[in-house]
């Protein structure tokens, strides 16, 4: 019944994404390195030290990154929706943290790419490489079909918080909602600062990225302390940055409204016992049903379900007990 308008909505969003990426890529990228003084024009046997000429990442490596991103999201969808396996998802989370976080040093991430894309659309002289556009578009496309698969197990910022969740408390629903609006404010501010003219432009999201300092083991001390604070807070409040501040999370939440599938806690298959709602550290299970816009694809609900996931075999064992009256 509601399939048709949703499909139309998805098509519209896809069209917009494709159109904007075509627009954003319109200008071929040129490095203005040649305009700088070269060794021969300086003379005197001067050698340009390698540190001043960082080579751009090879094109094929960029393709590898884009493929890795899509593959990780595909695996995340498969592990959560099909296998319902939290164990393997944790493995994927650690892998993503290692690759997108520590190896790629947290750049480029979809959260930050948002600003590059906005600038590319606003400033006719600014161009972005294919990888940035892909990084921005792919998670949104996945969100249109499967929900926030990017957030669970792929996003490096999410992964580092996901792994520190220790003893999460349930944030009161109203407070959770109110704080959740902060990310839209942040999104607005980030866009506002990004569309400013070139010299006054600022990439707020990257400047105040609390975790990138850990990925690089280097950064402004106040940001490192802030990041440490977020991680300590994250031990008790599940993924505070993702839920309350991440501007890209806001975009993903909008896209999930049109999602075809997602994490579901179905009325017939499960017991309705509420163990999943207790296990969800992100308050994404309301009235025993998963809320797609808040669901961060961590599969904890499936792991805690006595009917499903990793506990299912335990239940089967109970049923098989000889002499057990049902």
């Amino acid at each position, binding site marked *: 019944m509601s399939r048709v308008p949703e499909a139309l909505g998805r098509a519209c969003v896809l069209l917009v994404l494709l159109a904007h990426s075509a627009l954003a890529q319109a200008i071929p990228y040129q490095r203005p390195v040649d305009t700088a003084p070269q060794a021969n024009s300086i003379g005197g046997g001067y050698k340009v030290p390698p*540190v001043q000429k960082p080579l751009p990442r090879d094109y094929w490596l960029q393709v590898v990154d884009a493929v890795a991103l899509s593959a990780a999201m595909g695996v995340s969808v498969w592990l959560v929706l099909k296998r319902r396996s939290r164990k393997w998802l944790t493995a994927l989370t650690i892998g993503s943290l290692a690759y997108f976080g520590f190896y790629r040093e947290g750049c480029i991430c979809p959260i930050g790419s948002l600003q590059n894309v906005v600038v590319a659309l606003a400033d006719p002289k600014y161009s972005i490489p294919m990888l940035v556009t892909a990084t921005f578009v792919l998670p949104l496309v996945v969100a249109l079909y499967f929900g926030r698969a990017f957030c669970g197990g792929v996003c490096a910022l999410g992964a580092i918080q996901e792994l520190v969740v*220790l003893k999460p408390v349930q944030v009161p629903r109203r407070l959770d909602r109110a704080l959740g609006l902060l990310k839209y404010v942040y999104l607005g501010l980030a866009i506002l600062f990004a569309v400013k003219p070139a010299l006054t432009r600022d990439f707020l999201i990257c400047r105040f990225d609390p975790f990138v300092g850990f990925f690089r083991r*280097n950064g402004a001390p106040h940001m490192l302390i802030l990041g440490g604070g977020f991680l300590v807070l994250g031990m008790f409040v599940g993924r505070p940055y993702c839920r309350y501040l991440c501007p890209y999370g806001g975009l993903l939440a909008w896209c999930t409204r049109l999602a075809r599938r997602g994490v579901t806690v179905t009325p017939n298959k499960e*017991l*309705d016992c509420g*163990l999943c709602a207790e296990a969800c550290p992100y308050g994404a299970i309301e009235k*025993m049903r998963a809320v797609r816009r808040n669901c961060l694809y961590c599969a904890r609900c499936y*792991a*805690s379900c006595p009917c499903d996931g990793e506990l299912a075999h335990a239940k089967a064992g109970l049923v098989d007990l000889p002499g057990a*009256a049902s």
Partner: protein
Amino acid sequence: MMTGARIGSLIAGSLVVLCVAILLVDYAVANRQPFASRPAAEQKRVTAERLARKSRDNAVGWVLIAAAAAFLTFAKGLVQQPKPRPPAARQSGADALGVPSGPMRSPGRAPELDLTFVDQIVLQFGRGKESAIPLLQAIQTHYRYLPDDALRRLCEQTDITPAEIAGTSSFYGQFRRSPVGEHIVRVCHGTACHVSGARQITEELRRFLAIPDGEDTDAARMFTLDEVACLGCCSLAPVLMVDGHTAGKLTPATACNALKVTA
């Protein structure tokens, strides 16, 4: 195993604190002279000292990350001691409700009963077969169920045979032969409650109180679960009654809260 995780998390935690302290001290030492007050050229110069500090901090950073990972792994083991257990293995929910569960009585062996009460009522109601029902009612009111010892004593004191007592006490729904919990939870299984999920409510309560299949009282003898035909307030379905209190419009999530009125 418990202590191993605790020691491990302590060691890893202190290593984390140590690393953070080293980094902070390093930062403070390197920036004795305020950054902004230095000449512009010096702010940007990549000196050997600066490179050494960077690689040193990098190494400490890796140790910090590894220590934090170890700390979290150990701490998770500590925090999640009560693993998500399969329903049958869950502890009695009475503890979760904060109800003092008192000394655990083993279901097999009942405590010594004061049987003088049986002698008293036999004097009061008489020794004939016709007083069987009033006698049983009095015993049930006094002990809250019909203990086997009291029934045996009843047979010794009166003309009523064990067979008659067994027949009478099992015929009438008002008599119970097994001990009852302190609070009786009556879950309505009438038509309206049935269609609004009384079955799920009962199952959730059984799971919450860890009542084994085939029994109706939890191990701590706090709650006895009773399925009744109708409580007469179908508009509130699904409904349950705990002692005198009625709770309506329940969901499996809120059913356990309804037991809290007794706490």
